[in-house]
Every structure is written in structure tokens, then in C-alpha cells.
């Protein structure tokens, strides 16, 4: 059993974790321990059956008594543990507003990158995290319902397929680490990248949201960025909300306030360098 502290949440991970323990230790330095700790969420790795174990081993993740994911080969455990941690937060934490997006912060100002899978949001936020920005979250914005400020979690970015090779050259500093690639998951090849040390994470403060960028990565498209109506921005942010429907009036009010204050852009890009300049201007 290990306890994993991601800053905002503590997870207890039980079962046979030997195959992923070293990777987890390197992705979460100073955040794992083997002693009993009070945890927010419980994740148990379970063998499917004895016959299966002998013929074609599979494991399932029992998360807080639920099994939301299909069984997997033990070699694909690391991404599944990461997805399980996301699932725990999005399914249970309704004290915060959770928006499906990545969050990068610079100069005390946050930019949200909501977007469909393949829009390039994780690639871009990992790139920023490895180049002087702080990656507050790769998967969801955790927004305080009283202040509207976005809070940081100590979690790595999750990279898929070509993104892994794009990001690899930027993993250089001692506080950076890229995990081994897990091949052939249902989302393709997956690797995780840590962009900061726990010491740096511990200094991060909740931040005001300065901009919301809806990304569209397309190799054939020229760089194009334009401001969209706040009404369209609000509708799109709501549609990316994990728990908007259960957080009610508080979420409505805080989102209206965020959308009113933030710059909201639709951005098409094919080169990281093009978008980097635009983003830097938004947090001046």
C-alpha cells in the first residue's frame, strides 16, 4: 500500500503496485509514503481471476467501490492509476468547480485550455510547464467557488502518441521527469511528464484566470486567433464542466464573473512557437 499526496488530495493505492512503484516515485517525489495516512480516495488494484492470472493476466481498479474502467494488462497500470485519480476528483469533489481543461500559470495569472482530445492542450501545457510556466493541472481546472481562483495540483501532464516525442527534448532540468511510455492503451501510447519539483509546487498560490483559450491543433492550418463572444465562451466552458450541474448557483455566478473578466479566444495553430508569443502577451 502507498499513500500519494497530490497537494489537494491524498490517494491510498492498494494491491500489487510493484510494477509501477518506481515510476510513481519519480513522478511524485516527496509525495509517496508507505505508512498509513488518512486518504481522500481509495484505489485498489485487483486481480481479475486465478485462471486469468495464469493465462492472460489482467487487473481492474476498484475505485471507492466502483469499477469504472475495463480490466487491463498489468503493464498498462500507470496510465490507469492516473485516470483513476482524475476520476476520483471529478466524481466526488463538488466543493470546487471542476472544468475539463489544462491550466498553465505565469506572472500570477492563469490561462485555461479547454478542448477536445487531440486539440493539443496537454502538449501545449506540458511545453509551457517545461519552459518557465507552472502547470497547475493537466486534466481539470480546480476553481474555488468563493474566489474564482484556480488552484494547483501536484500531478504530471499526460501525453499521447506524437506528443511524447515533441515534448521529450524539453525534459532537461533536474526537476523534470518523463515516465516510460505505456504502449497500446485505449488512448494510444501514453507517457507522463513532471514539470516541477514538490518544493516549487508548495510555493504555488491560487491564481486569477486571465484568459480562456479554445485550442484547435491542425498541422495544415495557419495560425489564427480571434476573440469570441463571452456568451459563446460561457456556453463552451459550461459544456466542459465536470460538475457544473451539481454545483448550481455558486458555479453559475463564479463562471459569469470569470468570463466577464477573462480574454476568451479561439486559436488554431500548427506550431508551438506561434502560440507561445500570444500566450505570453495574455499574462503580462
Amino acid at each position, binding site marked *: 500500500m502507498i499513500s500519494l499526496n497530490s497537494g489537494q488530495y491524498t490517494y491510498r493505492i492498494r494491491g500489487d503496485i510493484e510494477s509501477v512503484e518506481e515510476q510513481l516515485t519519480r513522478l511524485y517525489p516527496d509525495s509517496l509514503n508507505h505508512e498509513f495516512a488518512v486518504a481522500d480516495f481509495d484505489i485498489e488494484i485487483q486481480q481479475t481471476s486465478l485462471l486469468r492470472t495464469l493465462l492472460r493476466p489482467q487487473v481492474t481498479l476498484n475505485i471507492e467501490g466502483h469499477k469504472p474502467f475495463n480490466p487491463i494488462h498489468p503493464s498498462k497500470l500507470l496510465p490507469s492509476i492516473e485516470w483513476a485519480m482524475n476520476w476520483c476528483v471529478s466524481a466526488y469533489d463538488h466543493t470546487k468547480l471542476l472544468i475539463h481543461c489544462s491550466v498553465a500559470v505565469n506572472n500570477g495569472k492563469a490561462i485555461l485550455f479547454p478542448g477536445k482530445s487531440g486539440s493539443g492542450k496537454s502538449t501545449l501545457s506540458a511545453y509551457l510547464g517545461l519552459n518557465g510556466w507552472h502547470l497547475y493541472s493537466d486534466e481539470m481546472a480546480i476553481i474555488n467557488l468563493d474566489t474564482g481562483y484556480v488552484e494547483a495540483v501536484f500531478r504530471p501532464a499526460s501525453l499521447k502518441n506524437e506528443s511524447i516525442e515533441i515534448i521529450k527534448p524539453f525534459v532537461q532540468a533536474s526537476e523534470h521527469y518523463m515516465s516510460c511510455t505505456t504502449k497500446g492503451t485505449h488512448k494510444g501510447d501514453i507517457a507522463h511528464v513532471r514539470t516541477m519539483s514538490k518544493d516549487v509546487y508548495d510555493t504555488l498560490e491560487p491564481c486569477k484566470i486571465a484568459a480562456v483559450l479554445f485550442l484547435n491543433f491542425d498541422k495544415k492550418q495557419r495560425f489564427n486567433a480571434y476573440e469570441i463572444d463571452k*456568451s459563446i465562451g*460561457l456556453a463552451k466552458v459550461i459544456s466542459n464542466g465536470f460538475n457544473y*450541474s451539481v454545483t448550481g448557483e455558486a458555479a453559475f455566478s463564479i463562471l459569469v464573473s470569470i468570463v466577464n473578466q477573462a480574454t476568451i479566444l479561439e486559436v488554431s495553430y500548427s506550431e508551438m512557437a506561434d502560440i507561445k508569443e500570444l500566450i505570453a502577451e495574455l499574462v503580462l
Partner: protein
Amino acid sequence: MQTTDTFLIHRLADKSAFVVFNRLNWCTYIISFNQVIENLNEGIIKSISSKDFIVLTAKEQIDTLFKADYWDTFK
């Protein structure tokens, strides 16, 4: 912003829409400003013309639409 037992209503800063949260059913409605103007031009609300409506402040616009029971459409 205007608030009642049932509704919480804002006009967005860029004036592109009114947004309504209905406390009874927890639904959110986004009503484009153009839609409201169109409704005024169609004569749905007799008490004010679209020309006079445009020059009002956000609060006055919301109040005017309250008086005309316009928001009840979103109950």
C-alpha cells in the same frame, strides 16, 4: 445583475447575452442580446421599443424585461 427567489440574471460584460440561472430547476439559459432585440422588434414586449431598450443600463434592461414577464419564459 438582478436576483429574485427564482432567477439570477446577468448581462455579460461584452453585452453579447443575458444569462439566467433558474433556481427552481438549476437550469442555465443564455439568451443572446440579438434575440431579445428581435423579440422587441416582433412586438412581444409592447412597453418599450428596441431603440429605447438599447440605451438602458444592464440593470434597467433586466428590470424592464422583468416587468414585461419576459423572464417567465425561462421558468
